[in-house]
């Protein structure tokens, strides 16, 4: 028989009350600044919403929204802008993904140069871009010192002008698209994944379609949504190229009407927020909208 060791009585439960001497004061200043900052953004938005709901005197209603949405010009310009945005996104992806991929894989020394180029739209305003485009593409493009014609004047045809504006949009969206894609590629280590796929017998097409693009889904989505937002709100390129997109429509509407533009502006805000929400949802809150400012 073994002697039983005396069992120690369990320590009395103590009610622990935190008497923290260094209890943090209510962060009054932080909250104050936060509220001021929030008001700065929310008040104008609230004013827009409030104004848009008061089309009829003394009644709160959605009449302005009804009027705005029922205008056939709205549907036409909005649809057109969505179409242009879709083409812009496709062209951007086709341009940016292989470029960023090649830089990561084979040409790391070109990174600084390409990053600089992609940032140019922040420095050079759209107005300069559009004047440059009109200046060059309104006459035929020829090989210098010869009369060999490379391109017919683009601004004189509908297809040509559409191509020009898409090219312009691609440039404007470049900082966002490139950064999103590049960040995406860094997080999945495309170099090693490429080598792994190669050693398993995959060719470039398979690597791109089955390995690289699926793993860049989030990055591409955030780049695409930002591009979409830029195209939808863009005024300068469209005005000078004389194309009936949503941006100039909203601008014109603002000059003639009071309530409808407010309704549309608020709707556009909601759309953008919904887009941000989608990014957050898909990336599980981890997503960062690279390069957004």
């Amino acid at each position: 028989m073994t002697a039983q060791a005396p069992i120690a009585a369990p320590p009395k439960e103590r009610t622990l009350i935190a008497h923290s001497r260094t209890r943090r004061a209510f962060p009054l200043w932080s909250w104050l600044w936060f509220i001021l900052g929030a008001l700065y953004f929310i008040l104008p938005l609230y004013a827009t919403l409030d104004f848009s709901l008061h089309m009829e005197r003394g009644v709160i209603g959605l009449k302005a929204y009804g009027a705005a949405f029922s205008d056939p010009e709205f549907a036409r310009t909005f649809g057109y802008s969505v179409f242009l945005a879709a083409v812009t996104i496709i062209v951007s992806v086709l341009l940016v993904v292989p470029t960023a991929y090649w830089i990561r894989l084979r040409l790391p020394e070109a990174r600084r140069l390409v990053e600089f180029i992609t940032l140019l739209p922040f420095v050079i305003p759209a107005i300069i871009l559009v004047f440059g485009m009109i200046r060059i593409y309104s006459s035929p493009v020829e090989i210098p010192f010869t009369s060999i014609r490379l391109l017919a004047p683009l601004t004189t045809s509908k297809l040509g002008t559409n191509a020009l504006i898409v090219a312009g949009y691609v440039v404007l969206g470049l900082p966002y698209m490139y950064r999103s894609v590049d960040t995406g590629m860094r997080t999945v280590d495309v170099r090693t994944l490429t080598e792994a796929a190669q050693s398993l017998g995959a060719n470039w097409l398979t690597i791109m379609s089955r390995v690289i693009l699926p793993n860049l889904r989030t990055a591409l989505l955030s780049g695409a949504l930002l591009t979409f937002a830029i195209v939808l709100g863009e005024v300068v390129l469209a005005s000078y190229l004389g194309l009936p997109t949503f941006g100039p429509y909203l601008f014109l509407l603002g000059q003639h009407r009071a309530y409808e533009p407010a309704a549309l502006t608020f709707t556009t805000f909601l759309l953008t927020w919904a887009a941000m929400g989608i990014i957050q949802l898909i990336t599980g809150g981890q997503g960062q909208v690279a390069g957004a400012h």
Partner: protein
Amino acid sequence: MAFLSIQHATKTFAQSSAVEDFNLEIEKGELVSFLGPSGCGKTTTLRMVAGFEVPTSGRIELSGADITSQPPNQRNVGMVFQAYALFPNMTVADNVGFGLKVAKKPKDEIQKRTAEMLGLIRMPQLGDRFPYQLSGGQQQRVALARALAIQPKVLLLDEPLSALDAKIRVELRSEIRRIQQTLGITTIYVTHDQEEALSISDRIVVMSAGRMEQVGTPFEIYNFPKTPFVASFVGTLNQLRCTVVDAAQGKLTFDGQTFTATAPIRASAGASVIAALRPEELHFGHFDGENQLTGKVEAVTFLGGIVRIRLALGQSQITLDALNERKLTLPKVGDMQTVSFPAHACWVMVEN
């Protein structure tokens, strides 16, 4: 003829040479490790075999065919990376089956082979998981299964265990060896960890500064290092700067104490040479018929299975590893102690 043959392979990157005149013949089913510090060219050599780097000069042959400039996706070489490199968008099963899918194998064959591979790495029930749901060790097992699924001619492992915990590392390395021997697959294993290389290899290539220092079995590499680099890189080594007294007899003098090393010594009397001794070949105390050296105990470190004792001998130090025993009396720091070793335990390295 060797199954994999690397002949005079050299790789130069912008003036600096990463690998110089690398020559190696690997037999079918052999596991050869490339061992060396970082920057010694071991990974570059492996990448030349994989096809990710093209040799600046030289030739690589695999089962008789010249593959020197063949693209990596046509070599049928399986590769496992340090960073696992599993495709994050695919499940474990899809990762393992990727190579077979690329090769357009029928669906049922892919399924069968994938199941077989998951069985081989002892993870049959985890096929539906995604890589992020697995631990590092599990991910590396999957990477191994993926590389093996395509039945490659050669398996290349590039520091596969470096990112893992010590315990998993030991477990997985014997697992890799077991699988390699089961399948009889020709394997090159790159590592900077000497214990890893010694424990799993049929042969080891020790590399330094882009050059092959020595090729041999783990036993040869450890016990008969041919260069001072190999001697000091693999295992712990005592190096004593001595003066030759009698080259034919192997007699040396060190700090006023004379002893005998493996004879003959390839240096003339009076020459300064380095005598090398492994810590585990030294015995504590006085043993008749053996060399004796006396010094002051500087440190006693208890490592569990081994007790490591450091003695000061003049300006030099000597380390001795004694196997632990319960009846052992540990010496005290400051004691004068004698250590013994047979002549054959000590070899002389002549400096170039």
